């Protein structure tokens, strides 16, 4: 492959091969402060390629390939190449991660304890995590929280934070001095812009944290908080985990211990300031 990029993000190393310079240049700029894979060997390989030779030049379409692929995945345009790379790395984790139980959740850390936020797309877990990062929390990740079955700790996986549509303007205002990727308009999921986790979050990527609170946020309602029963947490977390089944017994023990040992709350919030206030109040009450 013509252009190659590699990066370590927490405990996982990736290499990305690309037929075009553009996506690799974007990745190099945004992940400049990140380490390289241990021993120069990546855990997962991603390929961005043109399915026909002329597609490298004429109306280029970026096909996603790699160790683990979804058949019939639609290609992206070259200007969305960075998004293709990020999606491809997500896919490797979703389909190939076997060491850690993947929770589809964002996570932030304070005083060695992790706040894990999970829910459907659009519930705001990425945005909330990014905002808390600007309020002094360490960002552990915005897409996946990694649960270690042996220790019960959450491990950081701080990829580029993926901001969508309205969240972009919110974070442009809140993260002054932050490093942003290009604005990607009209992607299949609307407008997307990536935000690089702050210096502190990147520097701390190898420090795990004990999970202390599981949060199910829902945007667009009057502020409210309720407890969530362990059985509901268990079901929702298995549904939100792409590799629960693949982890077999280790996944079961990891998840039952997490659910038994960690308080869980659902919050409705009308706006992000309200959400942050609710989070701080809950955290203080633990």
């Amino acid at each position, binding site marked *: 492959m013509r252009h190659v990029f590699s990066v370590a993000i927490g405990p996982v190393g990736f290499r990305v091969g690309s037929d075009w310079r553009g996506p690799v240049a974007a990745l190099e700029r945004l992940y400049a402060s990140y380490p390289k894979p241990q021993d120069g060997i990546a855990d997962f390989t991603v390929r961005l390629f043109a399915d026909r030779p002329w597609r490298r030049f004429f109306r280029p379409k970026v096909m996603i390939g790699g160790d683990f692929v979804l058949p019939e995945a639609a290609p992206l345009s070259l200007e969305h190449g960075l998004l293709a790379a990020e999606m491809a790395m997500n896919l490797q984790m979703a389909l190939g991660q076997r060491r850690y139980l993947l929770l589809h959740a964002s996570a932030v850390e304070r005083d060695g304890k992790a706040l894990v936020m999970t829910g459907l797309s659009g519930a705001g877990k990425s945005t909330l995590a990014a905002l808390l990062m600007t309020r002094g929390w360490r960002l552990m990740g915005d897409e996946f929280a990694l649960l270690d079955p042996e220790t019960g700790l959450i491990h950081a996986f701080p990829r580029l934070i993926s901001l969508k549509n309205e969240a972009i303007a919110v974070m442009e205002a809140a993260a002054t001095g932050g490093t942003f990727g290009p604005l990607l308009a009209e992607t299949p999921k609307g407008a997307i812009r990536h935000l690089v986790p702050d210096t502190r979050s990147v520097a701390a990527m190898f420090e795990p944290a004990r999970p202390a609170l599981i949060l199910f946020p829902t945007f667009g309602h009057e502020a409210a908080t309720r407890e969530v*029963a362990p*059985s509901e947490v*268990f079901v929702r977390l*298995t549904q939100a985990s792409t590799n629960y*089944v693949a982890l*077999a017994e280790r996944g079961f*023990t990891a998840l*039952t211990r997490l659910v*038994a040992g960690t308080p869980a709350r659902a919050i409705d919030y009308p706006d992000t300031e309200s959400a942050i206030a609710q989070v701080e109040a809950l955290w203080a009450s633990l």
Partner: protein
Amino acid sequence: MATLYRAASPDSLIVAPVDLLTAIYHRASGQTHLMASPAPEILDALAEAPLDAAALLAKLRADYDLVDADPAVLAARLDELVETGLVERR
């Protein structure tokens, strides 16, 4: 000769109560089941030896105080357990 029901052996199961429900991991199949009473009790009652439906009902009444245990309901629960592979018909 009545059908016997045989449960997966206790050491092929990891049982974790999760508030009112019971999460069960079945080692032989890799499947996770979230069960409500009387399913966990049925598995427990069958742990030592296979039983037919009548004997199982009697044991559930005796050991678990299931006063209103209904044979039809039990049959339905057993069908579900057979479908999951946690119980086998002999």
